[in-house]
């Protein structure tokens, strides 16, 4: 089975989709359990992969390579290296947990879980593919189920959010497509002596600085132009300022499980794509634009934090905190030091854990109280004093919040301080400005905790039928299902916070070779 483990992992959920569609739609529990097992298998395979992974090898492992579309030299080329292994684990784990987070979906259960599994295929395939064309196919494949998941099962403004998400990502993919084609056609060499290719490993061996590209009559350096095309395509997904405004909408309107996947996995695709393509294929251009990237990252950190501070919707606050936290990834990637790069990669994983926890916990509150207002439109506190009624929910919230704001002993601290340690020697003033984000991050998160969980008990409950807010008398504690979803994430948060080396071991060899490539 290890022969085709990546294909099995990627495409197993398709079997689940087929099975789900043979089940009558009223047997909702059966559908849910099929979906759970269809994601459990990839999770198990991901764990097998983790245990069999050779951490000393910087190149791809478990490679599967076949001719696919011979007329355009596209290959079915899958493989895992240090960049993708943790992302695969994250995807498999979050997808499995999110099946349970979406357990109480009422509307079109069959369609929901089919879409969810299709999304799983897209995400997993993206992280496994080593062929740009295949990468692009999975990138687009993910878009469709995500559009429907937001647009059908979302909140009150779901259509707007879904179309916004779709348009943004499509605009990004168009640029990426152009960049991809440019790389493809130029990869055949000036004399056409070799066949053009989409193979990322082969693309990485070409010296792109030798080419020029003519656009509107002006001659531009090829590698820098293509770098920007790809970078903007990925920046939309990260999301980098100023392409981030789809994120609050999509996160807020999406159902809980989808928000978790959005924050936990989809945002990482942007940074992963940058590492996989911009950094690997176009190292010279990456070095050239490093400072721009760092500045963009810092803008994200500070800007996202300020926006989060002003939010009155708890889910929107968490969404903007994602913007801020992804800024650390970009900053860390832009410095090409081992500390910065490893920190950025770990931050991707960590943000996947802590943001996922926070979105799930927003869902926990929403399921009970049917609203998300920290401050209602009338200016009253929507929550308040929840700690008195539901100490367990409060405790888990506190854990997630402190993981997010980078408390030592929890995962966020490790990655953020590694990013800063890597960034400071390179960009001193800029890093000092970025460290404002630490203070602001603590400010908006703890201010939220204070207004939601502490103080006198003033929590309101929104009647789903009439939309009237009235005081909530009881808040039920965490259910077993919610514990099952949140406990693994919490444990990982603490584990990485205390002893991160096993996680860093996976990535450091591959990242080291990228750094060598860029810095040499």
């Amino acid at each position, binding site marked *: 089975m290890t022969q085709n483990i990546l294909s099995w992992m990627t495409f197993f959920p398709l079997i689940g989709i087929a099975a789900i569609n043979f089940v009558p739609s009223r047997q909702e529990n059966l559908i849910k359990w099929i979906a759970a097992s269809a994601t459990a298998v990839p999770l198990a395979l991901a764990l097998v992969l983790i245990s069999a992974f050779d951490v000393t090898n910087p190149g791809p492992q478990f490679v599967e390579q076949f001719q696919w579309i011979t007329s355009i030299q596209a290959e079915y080329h899958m493989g895992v290296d240090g960049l993708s292994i943790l992302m695969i684990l994250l995807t498999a784990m979050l997808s499995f947990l999110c099946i349970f987070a979406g357990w109480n979906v009422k509307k079109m259960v069959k369609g929901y879980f089919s879409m969810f599994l299709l999304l799983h295929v897209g995400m997993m395939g993206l992280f496994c593919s080593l062929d740009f064309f295949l990468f692009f196919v999975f990138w687009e494949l993910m878009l469709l189920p995500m559009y429907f998941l937001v647009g059908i099962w979302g909140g009150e403004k779901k259509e707007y959010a879904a179309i*916004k998400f779709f*348009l*943004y990502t499509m605009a990004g993919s168009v640029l990426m497509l152009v960049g991809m084609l440019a790389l493809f056609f130029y990869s055949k060499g000036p004399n056409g002596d070799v066949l053009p290719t989409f193979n990322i490993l082969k693309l990485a061996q070409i010296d792109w600085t030798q080419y020029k590209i003519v656009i509107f009559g002006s001659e531009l350096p090829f590698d820098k132009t293509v770098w920007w095309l790809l970078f903007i395509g990925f920046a939309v997904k990260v999301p980098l*300022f*100023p*392409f*981030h*405004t789809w994120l609050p909408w999509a996160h807020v309107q999406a159902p809980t499980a989808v928000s978790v996947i959005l924050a936990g996995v989809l945002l990482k695709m942007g940074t992963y794509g940058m590492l996989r393509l911009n950094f690997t294929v176009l190292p010279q251009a990456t070095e050239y634009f490093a400072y721009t990237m760092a500045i963009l990252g810092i803008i994200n950190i500070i*800007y996202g934090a*300020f*926006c989060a*501070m*002003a*939010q009155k919707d708890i889910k929107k606050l968490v969404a903007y905190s994602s913007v801020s936290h992804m800024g650390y990834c970009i900053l860390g990637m832009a410095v090409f*030091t*081992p*500390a910065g790069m*490893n920190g950025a990669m770990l931050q991707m994983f960590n943000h996947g854990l802590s943001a996922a926890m926070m979105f799930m916990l927003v869902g926990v509150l929403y399921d009970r109280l049917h609203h998300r207002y920290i401050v209602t439109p009338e200016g009253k506190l929507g929550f308040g*004093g929840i*700690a*008195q009624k539901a*100490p367990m929910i409060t405790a888990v919230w506190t854990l997630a919040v*402190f993981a997010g704001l980078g*408390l*030592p*002993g929890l995962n966020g*601290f*490790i990655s953020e*301080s*590694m990013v*800063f*340690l*890597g960034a*400071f020697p390179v960009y*001193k*003033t800029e*890093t*000092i400005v970025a*460290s*404002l984000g*630490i*203070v602001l991050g*603590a*400010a908006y998160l*703890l*201010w939220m905790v*204070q207004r939601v*969980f*502490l*103080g*006198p008990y003033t929590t309101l409950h929104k009647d789903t039928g009439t939309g009237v807010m009235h005081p909530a008398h009881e808040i039920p504690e965490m259910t077993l299902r919610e514990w099952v979803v949140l406990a693994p994430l919490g444990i990982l948060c603490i584990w990485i916070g205390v002893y*991160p*080396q096993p996680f*860093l071991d996976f990535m*450091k060899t591959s*990242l*080291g070779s990228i*750094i*060598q490539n860029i*810095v040499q």
Partner: protein
Amino acid sequence: MESVDPLIYTALWIPTLPLLAYVIQTAFGVKLPRMGDWLSTGAIFASFLLACRIFAAMWSANDPNWAVSHAWKWIDVGTETIPFKLIVGVRLDNIAAIMLLMVTLCATLIHLFSTGYMRDHHGKPEDGYRYASFFSFLSLFTASMLGLVISDNLLTLFMCWELMGLCSYLLIGFYRHKTSAANASLKAFMTTRVGDTGLFIGMLALFGIVGSFRFEDIYRAVGEGALSGQLLGFTAAGFIGFLIFLGTVGKSAQFPLQVWLPDAMEGPTPVSALIHAATMVAAGVYLIIRMFPILEAGHVLTLVAYVGATTALLAAILAIKQNDIKKVLAYSTLSQLGYMVMAVGVGAFTAAFFHLITHAVFKACLFMSSGSVIYAMHHEQDMRNMGGLKKKLPITFAAMFITTLAISGVPAFSGFVSKDMILAGVLGFGFFNNPDHMFLPIAAFLTAGLTAFYMFRLIFMTFFGKPHDHHHYEEAHEGGWNMWLPLAVLAFFSLAIFYTGSLTGGLFGGADKIFGASNDWFKNLVQVPRLGSTLVEAGAHGHETGGHHGFEHYEHLAHMPAMILSLILAGLGIGVSFLVYGSKKISSEKLSNLWPKFVHKLIDNLYYFDFFYIKIFIQKFLMPSADKIAKFDDNVIDRIVVDGWSDVAKVGYKSAGTFDDVVVDGVMVDGLGGGIPSVFGASLRTLQNGKIQRYLLVAVAALVVLFFFRGIL
């Protein structure tokens, strides 16, 4: 693998035991008998025994440079060419060993005291788990402090430092149904976080230069002059030293970040004892003691001294007007911390650490005594409602009286010895050495007098005179043994004899040692850290004192005058206090009317710091700018980038429509035929009436017309 000194493992167990207690308490605390308070208390007591073991090792070594350390690799992600390694470990030296003993002793007694004080929360079903979580937080707090003390590097020190911030957040906000408690905890966390960020940046810069966080490497780098380069327009050492000091300013509540500490009194009283005596605020001073070589090399010590002196004086003035018994102690803590920081600033390294230890002991006792009073008075904290409690609470009174003598600087008590050393150092620095810095000794001696005054005011108002609230007075009684025993133990350790005397001359030395002798064990064992192989040499990187040897010279010169002055001032403070609050010979109103109104206003508003931070900075600047940025995000970025395209499209079709109306319609058509368009439009309109048969008819007609024309052509 080099062999590891077994003491290292002993040291590792010291924070681990309370940490384990925290984990067990969090998971199963509610299910344990007595909610597991014995578990936390037992764990910290075991740590205390281990700390005694380490202290004994240090004692028998009797060497100012005694140190045991061992380090492990924690994170390593370096490549062949660019290394990146984080090495963390344990370091035991004289400072750490003394700190460990002090922290574990105070923490054990505070835990024990809490089993009595917090009993209100025991057994009530709705609050039952709170008792368990109180002890779990207390354990985590202690574990963090102990972890901080045994750290051999800035990184784990910083981690424990931040964890203490978390614990203070949780414990200050322990009465979480109170808005004031929630506000106070947020304020404490955020204010310290501001300082911590400074410290963090300083650490980044330090790591960038030294490549390690270990104290040994840092000292060596300072000794080799690695920090003498430029960094962002400053000298590296100055830049780093200033930022590290910012951490202390936040954590030890120094001017201008002192605002959180008085509010932190919202927490339960044992927490106040823990935060304000043994752990959190002590950590700030501990940090600058550890980082003394950098501060010295960076010439920031003068700044440190001024910040400390300002804090000491301002806080002492505030303490005079407080009526809340805990607030008095809070401001006195601030003031004493200012003393320690000032001592570091003038180079009185040993004195600062000495005062840190003695202050921790007597302040823990003072806080717990006040807790005992509050407990006896059913959570009444206003001193104006107390009085005459001497008879009702004899043990508390005795303990509090002894420790008040200690803090006021009365001979034979610990505070006298340590304070005397500080005052001598300050006088030597600011009067004999650098007359420019006269502010420092003036502030220090004024504070000494004020401290004696307000502390005795507290004693007189609380324990003497007539009871004001008879109902509570009648019911007042001592708590159980678990509440008075800690007081007694700590009061006992507030005697000077434990800190004086040389090792060779036996623990208690001669009688003269009580008056601050020169060859105390403490003074011998706690000395400025070695930089590599040599001590800080005078003039080399030294600051204005002319290096440490110069400092010792002036300190010696200032010793006698300082002692005499401080005795006079302490006596004066106690005397005035007795006349005003004890025998009531002087009316307190008259005394306060001596001062102009604006002084009172300034004091009542705490010098307008809160006003500036909260009303101006946060409410007028930070929140509105956050709102503005969020609005900018919604209305500008969002519009321009996506929704904006629909606007572009709208503009497009609107302009096309205008073109149609104005140019095509207005000029071409109207200009040609005036009324034709309207007729045309109307007839076309009637065509499109939605009726299928009409459409069909039109189609047929059109066909006919086409055929007709085809026939013509």
